[in-house]
């Protein structure tokens, strides 16, 4: 059953929302951030199936910090739309997905830079095992008046098996002329030189691989500053 949730972050308010879904979900979140507000949104989905839509509107001087952690059962789809509607509105989207078996992770983002001097940073990392699949489609749309926009988008995939597959579809639509924009995607297996280095110090292949995989994940986990959440997450992984 689809349902909607509306959340308003009032002027000058600093808030953290931790969403940990326990059951399969199909929710649409509509979040409005008023002037000078700050929101940290942590979305953890472990062993569930879900299709969520999150639409976030940011007013002047507001900043959004989103962290998505997804461990799908069958498929998780995260659809995220961010509208940066004021000067100095900043958003960060960071995501880590760990996918096994024949499960799938699909992340779709749309960032609309509707006003001048806003920033967006996206980092989507996937660890893919077995026959799993990941898809990242990200559209950054910089509107005509949105001068001095800074937008970054990066998708990194670590393939742990030959049969895992990842697809990246980055898209840029730029209608302003004074902007800084970068996007990229990389897909690779465990680095053999790094693996050998760790082994040469006595770590077994298994220990060395685990360390390198955790190293790949760490960049995202480190964005979580709440100790309790971070600890429980490290345990989970």
């Amino acid at each position: 059953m689809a349902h909607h949730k509306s959340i308003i972050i009032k002027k000058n308010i600093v808030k953290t929302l931790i969403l940990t879904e326990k059951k399969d979900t199909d929710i649409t979140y509509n979040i409005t951030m008023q002037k000078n507000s700050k929101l940290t949104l942590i979305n953890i989905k472990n062993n569930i199936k879900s299709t969520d839509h999150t639409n976030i509107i940011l007013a002047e001087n507001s900043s959004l910090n989103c962290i998505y952690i997804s461990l799908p059962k069958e498929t998780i789809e995260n659809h995220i739309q961010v509208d940066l509607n004021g000067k100095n509105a900043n958003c960060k989207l960071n995501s880590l997905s760990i996918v096994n078996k024949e499960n799938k992770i699909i992340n779709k983002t749309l960032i609309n830079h509707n006003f001048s001097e806003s920033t967006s940073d996206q980092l989507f990392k996937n660890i893919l095992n077995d026959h799993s699949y990941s898809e990242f489609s990200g559209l950054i749309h910089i509107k005509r008046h949105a001068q001095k926009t800074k937008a970054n988008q990066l998708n990194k995939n670590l393939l742990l098996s030959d049969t895992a597959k990842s697809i990246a579809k980055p898209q840029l639509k730029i209608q302003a002329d004074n902007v800084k924009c970068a996007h990229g995607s990389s897909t690779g297996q465990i680095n053999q030189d790094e693996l050998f280095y760790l082994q040469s110090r006595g770590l077994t292949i298994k220990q060395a691989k685990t360390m390198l995989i955790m190293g790949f994940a760490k960049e995202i986990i480190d964005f979580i500053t709440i100790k309790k959440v971070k600890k429980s997450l490290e345990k989970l992984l």
Partner: protein
Amino acid sequence: MLKIKNLSVKTNNIEILNNLNLHIKAGEIHVIMGTNGSGKSTLAKTIVGHPQFKASKGEILFEGQNILKLAPDKRARLGIFLSFQYPTEIPGVNNASFLRMAYNTHQKSQGHPALDPLEFEDLLQNKLKIANISEKYLDRAVNAGFSGGEKKKNEILQMAVLEPKLAILDEIDSGLDIDALKSVANSVNSLKNKNNAIILITHYQRILNYIKPDYVHVIHKGQIIKSGDKTLAHKLEKKGYEWLITNP
């Protein structure tokens, strides 16, 4: 401790080491010198089991056991250590956690108990002093963004933590400033005892002002073409390799 017999090594079907022999006893320091590309690093990497270098002939005995078929981690746990000429950067892997895991893996294989983070912290303080490296490097990712000299000191820190029986130091003196060279040499000397052995690969006589070798070998085209004592290093410093290569 180490006996290399008639060792030939190929990579990509090119022969790099050719019938090489070397014997090392506990308590000894052996220096290996030789021109660029003569096979020094290849020898070092073959001893520790780098997958790129396969022996096509001969054997490497470590304490009587042929180690050529052993995985690199097994060789490390037997007590063989290589300080790399170019240490690998590993972003995301915390230096302190890595050191502790390496240490505990060695402990376990010797039937000793593992240390928890606090106990290991105590041990590390002492090792930091031996390696003369600041503890600020512990919180960083392994070698990531380290300067050339910092990487070499981090290799020495690992050696101090693991206390190998055989340490191979591949150009530990390259890229070090004068003070750092002295410091690294002091670290190596304080880790040296009568039960362990060192292979020191170098291009320069300078480090031998601090570390006193028992033997100096010259490797050329994958073979040891001359062995002597430390006066050989002096001679090479003065005369270069030409005289040796033309009339060994």
